[in-house]
């Protein structure tokens, strides 16, 4: 397998992990909205589902993107595909 194929393999692996986390917090948990609302876990005292829609999921997305960007930069570095000055 060429260097480029390996790079893409890893990139795709990272994509699947990122999308899996995204799926859980944008779609997965809201399948159980009514059940979660009754939960005794109350972040800052808010009902759980209400908190996720207001803050929880949103904050997780922000962190997820920065984490994804960091990981992708590592993958690019590993294969020497990081941009250099004058590339553009």
């Amino acid at each position, binding site marked *: 397998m060429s260097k480029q194929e390996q790079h893409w393999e890893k990139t795709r692996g990272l994509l699947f992990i990122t999308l899996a986390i995204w799926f859980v917090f944008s779609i997965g948990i*809201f399948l159980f909205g009514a059940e979660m609302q009754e939960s005794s876990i109350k972040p800052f005292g808010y009902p759980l589902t*209400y908190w996720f829609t207001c803050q929880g999921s*949103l904050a997780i997305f922000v962190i997820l993107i920065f984490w994804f960007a960091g990981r992708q930069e590592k993958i690019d570095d590993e294969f020497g595909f990081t941009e250099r000055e004058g590339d553009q």
Partner: protein
Amino acid sequence: MIKGKFIDNLPKIYGIYTGGFLVFIILMSIAEQAGMSKELIGIFFVSFTVLIYALIGWLSRTLQSDAYYVAGRQVPTVFNGMATAADWMSGASFVAMAGGIYFKGYGYMALLVGWTGGYVLVAALLAPYLRKFGCYTVPDFIGTRYGGNLARFCAVLVLTLASFTYVTAQINATGRIASVALDIPFNIAVYVGLASILMCSMLGGMRAVTWTQVAQYIVLIIAYLLPVFWISSNIGAGFFPHFMLADEVARIAELEGQFGFVKNSAADMATVPKGLAQITKAHSEVNATPWAFISLAICMMAGTASLPHVMMRYFTTPSVRTARRSVGWSLFFIFLLYSSAPMLATLSKISLMDPNLATGIIGKSIAEVQALDWYQNWNQAKLMFVSDFNGNGTLELNEFFMKGDAVVLATPEIAGLPYVISGLVAAGGMAAAMSTADGLVLAISNALSHDIYYKIINPKAETAKRLIVARILLVLIGFAGATIAALEINDILGSVIWAFDFAMSGLFFPLVLGVWWKRANAAGAVAGMLLGLGSGTAYLVWVKWYAGAGFLGITTNTFGLVGATVSLVAMIVVSLITEAPDSATQKMVDDVRVPSGKTILGKQ
């Protein structure tokens, strides 16, 4: 000129600007104490900020195509994040979203999740790759990746329809705010809004829009957060509302149980002005089915990743790496406002409902409420209404009506803040709507001038001529948008949701598969765009105007699900039964996937 130096000095320049704006707010509040009238405060806030944007637009004028189309590809990560946040947060986010949550509760909070979750898709699936491509516009990517003018033309078609639907809503919002703040009729105010929008974008294209959007973000975020924090500590709810409103949320639920949700008779409702709503949904209950919530969230997420005015902001960063990080910053700046919207809705509602607060009006006598200064103003603007349906002389929860679009603008007055805050909020709403309208008008006119005029009609056109065509189109599109906005076909939030569905129907899969599936070809992309857009639109028309029953619980807010599914199937089937893309195209896709090296299109 300012250029190189300007980019190096950005934190300083915008720091001074922010300080200056805060000083302006303090001066206005001193002026209010000294007896300046409400009308004058509103006029000062809106006209002062709009003039600043126009000044930035004028200073950023340019005659170079790289600066006009992609701001010279030198916008630093964090500033591009701010510009994208302003570009993204429209009149719908600023003016209408908290109102939607206020009246519809949980069902509309899907918008919060959808309009933020979509950025994960932007970062992981598209933005870095499109940046590597080095295109000027989104159809530029489609046209080059798939090859052929037909694919390019279809992309322009979807882009124009989605963005135009979106932009009419934004011009509508600027008109509404200008009409309240400047006290002029709505159908004139719409053109005042348009003139402000064009001043920002016409001379400098993307470069001007970028630097005005950063300035607009600063105004809109101050305008949104200040009242939220202020009201919260005013009513003793806590100095940091985001972490401290749990008691208020519980108190609202208690009050709702006490007042009850009474349904008004049809005869009573006939006396209420059109478009005003009463509170009928519980504030924090899960009152929508999982599918209703999730389907709306999916549509908003896929739409986010397909809307061209957002995508093209990531063409302006210096590199692929910065494009990726910039998506994170964009979402961070958006998060600041979105996490505050439900807090604003909570504070607004408790101020209105709680009889223990001085501002609570439910349970007071109708005559007392009708004598309130702010009620009279908003009632006169046909945005608020009370009526004693049951004839007992006191105001019940079901007897108070407000337009969803008015919640954010009216809340400071309802909660008893000084009028200077209302002026500030009006300026913030204006900034939010203008910044998005700028991005959209530019996206449309760039696609028409670059992809239709330059790439299809007249490939030999010189830069100067292309930029003149781009500017003429900008003005024409702006006027068309304002004319339609003056007709008021749909409310702000409704039109924006439609725009997302249109974009998702036609562009989501052709964009994503263009990077992630090498086998996708031109015939497949064209089929995907046309059949996707066609089926989505057909579903909307069927349900909305021909009273169609619909299927699978898909509504006029989520018709993008139909369009995108058809688009995906059509694209895969047609791609597989036609020839695979040639080796040059496959090589191009390989190059897009690697961050280093030259951009695909090179210097244009």
